[in-house]
C-alpha cells in the first residue's frame, strides 16, 4: 500500500472444495475465513480464545465470492462481473489473465485482478490502484481425498 513503507505479509493455507473454502491464516494472526458457498464466518484465535463472527458486509461477501470463483476457475461466473482478457507478457507462467470489473462501483475497490499459473493457479494480484495491491502466492497445491 502507498500508505505503508513495507508490505503486510501473512501466510497460511487454503482448503478448497467445490462448495467453498477455508482460508487459514496462521501468521501473523490466527484468522480463518470460512466460506460454504452462502455464508462467511471469520474465526479469530487469540491465545486459547476462539471468536466466531458471521460476516454480513456485502463488500466482503462480494470479494469472497470472487476469490472462490477465481480459485475454482469458474470463468463462466466471473464473466458476469469481469471482462476477462488473456495476458501474453507474463513469461514465467503458462497462462495469465487480466480481469477488469464491469461495474464502476466494484472498480473503485478492485481496479483489476491478474491471475497466472500453470497446472494450478499460482499467483493472484488484486489491484485497487497501481500502488495499492494484494499479491497472493499459492504454493504446494495438491488434491486431497
Amino acid at each position: 500500500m502507498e500508505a505503508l513503507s513495507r508490505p503486510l505479509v501473512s501466510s497460511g493455507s487454503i482448503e478448497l472444495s467445490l462448495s467453498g473454502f477455508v482460508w487459514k491464516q496462521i501468521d501473523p494472526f490466527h484468522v480463518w475465513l470460512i466460506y460454504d458457498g452462502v455464508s462467511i464466518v471469520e474465526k479469530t484465535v487469540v491465545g486459547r480464545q476462539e471468536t466466531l463472527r458471521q460476516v454480513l458486509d456485502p463488500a466482503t461477501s462480494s470479494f469472497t465470492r470472487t476469490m472462490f470463483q477465481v480459485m475454482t476457475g469458474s470463468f463462466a461466473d466471473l464473466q458476469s462481473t469481469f471482462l476477462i482478457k488473456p495476458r501474453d507478457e507474463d513469461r514465467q507462467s503458462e497462462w495469465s489473465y487480466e480481469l477488469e470489473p464491469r461495474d464502476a462501483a466494484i472498480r473503485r475497490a478492485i481496479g483489476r485482478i491478474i491471475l497466472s499459473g500453470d497446472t494450478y493457479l499460482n499467483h493472484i494480484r488484486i489491484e485497487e490502484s497501481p500502488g495499492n495491491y494484494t499479491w497472493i502466492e499459492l504454493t504446494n497445491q495438491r488434491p486431497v481425498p
Partner: protein
Amino acid sequence: MIESPPPWWHELIDTAGKRERASFGLFLFALMLLGMTGALRSASEPINTDMLSLVGVEGSDPVKKAATRRINHYAERQQIWIVSHPQFERAFEAAKALQADLKDSILYDLPESAALAADADILGIYESYRYQLADEVTLDLVRDGGDTALVGRVERNLYSRAMVIPADVLSEDPFLIRTHFFRNLFRTPPPFAIDRGFMAASVAGSWYYLVPARLTRGAFDFAYQTRISDFSDRLIERYEDRHQVRVVPVGVISYAIENRELALREVRLIGVLSIVMVTLLLISTFRSIYPFSAVAFTIVSSLTAGFFACLVLFQSVHLLTLIGGSSLIGISVDYSFHLLTDSFRAADGGAPSRSPGGGFSHSEERWRVTHGLKTVAPAVTLGLATSLLGFLGLSASGFRGLQEIAVFSAVGLTTAFTGLILCYPWLLAKYEPTRRGSLGLRIAKLWSGLFVRSEPGLITVAALTVLLVLIAPHQGIDNDVRLLAARTPGIERLREQSAFLAGSIVASQFIVVTGDSVEQVLRKEEELRVLLSDLTRSGAISHFNQLSRFVPSARRQAEAYELNRRLYLEPGTAIDLLSQHIGLTDAVVRRGRDAMRETSRPEPLTLAAWLESPAASLARHLWLGEIENQVTSVVTLGGIRDLKLLENQLLDVSGVRLVDNVSDMSAVFGLYVDNALRGLAVAFVLVAGLMIWRFGFRGGLFIMLAPLLSGVLTITMLMFLNEPINLFHIVGLALILGMGMDYVLFLKTSPHRSCAMLAVLMAAVTTECAFGLLSTSAVGAIHSFGLTVALGTAISFLVAPLVAKEPG
C-alpha cells in the same frame, strides 16, 4: 295474550294510512336530511380501513401517546419493496431500476436510504467533525486496553480477509476510528448488510435487496390505496417479465389494501346472498311483488340510514361496521315479516280475530296495512325497545368499533320500524294477500302445534342447559387485539415477509427516551446503548438504532477529540507505535499530525445542524422533538425475542419508557370486555324492567327466560367449540337479547299464532343466513360475532315458543 295498541298508536297509524303519500314523502325527506348531514360531516375518507384506529390507548402517559402517534404516522407511510433473485448482481440491477421507477412515480417519495450511507454527499456534514467521531467500542477499547489495543485492532483489521479497507481510507484514517464509526452508524437487522446503497441479504439461495419508499399520502386513504394497488400490480408484472426478478411490496398500506379487499368481498358476499335468500323467501311465501318491494325498501333505507348516522356521529364508517352492519339485512326485515304474515290471518284456519278497535272482525274482511299495523304494533314497539336497549349496552363498552355497530344497527332498526308505519301503507296499497296459506304457513302451523304444552319442553331445555354448563370446557377470555386482524393467505404472506424484514420497518415496540435537553437525551441514549448492546449479544434482541449514533453527545464528541489529539500529537505514543507495527510512511504520519494541529478544539456537531443536513434522512424519524415539555427521541428495536427481559432491564432506567403497542392495546381490549359485560348486564336488567312493566312481575320474569336460556346456551356451545370468549361474542349476545325478545313478543302478543310463528320462522331463516355467512369471515372479530348470533338465533327460535306460551 292479545294486545291492543294504545290510543295514540291508533291515531298515528290511521293518519299515516290516510295520508299515504305524505307519510312516505316525510320519511324520504327525513332520510335525505340525514344523508345530507352525514355527507357534510363526513371526513375526506368516509370509509375507514385502519383496524387499529378503533382501539384507543387510554390511560397511557401523554409522552407515550404522542410518541406512538408520531411513530405510527411515520410507519404508516413506510413501504419496502423486496427484490429477489438467485444472483446478487441481477437483484442489485433490478433494485436500482426499481428505485428509479419509484422515484419517477408521483405516488412515492424516495428517502435517502442507508444505502447512501456510503455516499460522501450524504455524510458530508461529518467531514468538519471528523476528529470528534468515535464509536463506543473504540472508546472502550482504548479505555480498557490503552493505545496498544487500538493499534492491535488496526493490524488485525488490515490482515483480516473479512474487512475490506481501501488504501485512501488508511491514509486519511490510520487508526480506522472513523471507519468503525461509519460502519456502526446504522444497524441493519441480520442477515442484512449494506451493499452499494441497499440493504441486502442472502437467504436460502436467493439474494434480497430492499428498496425503501415513502408514500405521499396516508395508508388508509381509500382512493390512494386503489392507485397504489394498481401501480404495484403493474410493476410486479413488469419486473417478473422483463427482469425475471421477484418484487414484493411490504408495509402498512399492503395490509390495509388486503383488509379492504377482504372486507369488500365479504360485504358483497353477505349482502348478495342475504338479499337472494330474502327475495326467495318473500316471493315463495307471499307470491306477490309488493311485499318484496316493501321489504327491499326497508333494507335499503335502514342500511342507508345506519351508514349516514355513523357519518354524522363519527365522520367515517369503519370496515368492521360495514361488515357487521351488512348483517342488518337479516334483522331489519323482522318487523316487516311480522306485519306481512299478519295478512295470512284469513288463511290461518279462518279464526275470528279481535279487531284492534275493539270487538271482533270477520277474518274474511280484506286485510289492510293499517289493520295489520295495529295488530303488530305492541310487539314491534316492544321489540324495537328491547333491541335498542341491547345496543345501548354495547355502546357502553367504550370501544369505537362497537359504538359504530351499535349506532348503525340502532338507527337501521329504528328506520325499519318507522318505515313500517309511514311507508308501508303506500307501498302495500295494492297488495292482495293470498287466501290460501303458503307452504311456509303450513310449516309454521305444524311447528306451532308442537308447543301446545310448553312445560315439559321448558323443563327439558332448562335441565339440558344446566347439564351442558356443568360439563362445558372452560375457555377463558381472549383480549388479544389481533382479533381485529384478518387471516387470509394474502395477509399471512405479508406477515411472513414482514417477519423476514424484522426491524427494517418500524415495529409496534420501541423505546422512548426523554430529557430536559438534547444533550441529556443523547447522553441517556449512550448509557442505554451499553444495556441494549448486552441484550443484543445475549440474543434478547437482534439489533437497535439510536439517534445518538448519528449525533454523539457533546461529551462523547469531546472525548473522541481528546483521543485523536492524544493519538496524533502526544510524543512517543500511538501514531509512532502504529507506524512501527504496520510501517506507516512518514508522509502519512506527518499529514495526520499536521491536520490535527490545524484543528483547534471545534464546536460539537449539534442536532440542529445535523437535522438540516442530508444525513438526517437516515434517521430523522428517531427524533420526536419536544413533547409535553420533554425533549424526546425514539430507539427502534428489532427481532425482540425476550420482551420480559427487556422490560425488566428498563425498569430502573430513568427517562426511558418501553412502548409495546400490542400489549397496551390488548390491555385496553380487556377494559372493553369488562365494560361490555357490564353494559350487557344493565341492558338485561332494563329489558326485564320493561317486560315486568308490560306483563306484570310473573309474566315479565317468565319472558326473560327466553334471552337468558338463549344466552347461556350460546356461550356454552361456544365453549364446546373451543372458542375463547372475546368482546365480539359479547356483542353477539347483545343482539341475541334483542332478537330473542322479538321472537317471544311476536308469539306472545299476536292473536294469530301461526302467522306470528311464520314471521318468527322467516326472521330466523334470514338471520341465520346473514350471520351464518358472517361466521365464515376471515376476520376473527367478525367470525366470533357471526357465530354467536347464528347459534343464538337457532336457540332463540327453539326456546321462544316454549316461553311465549305461558303455562297455566
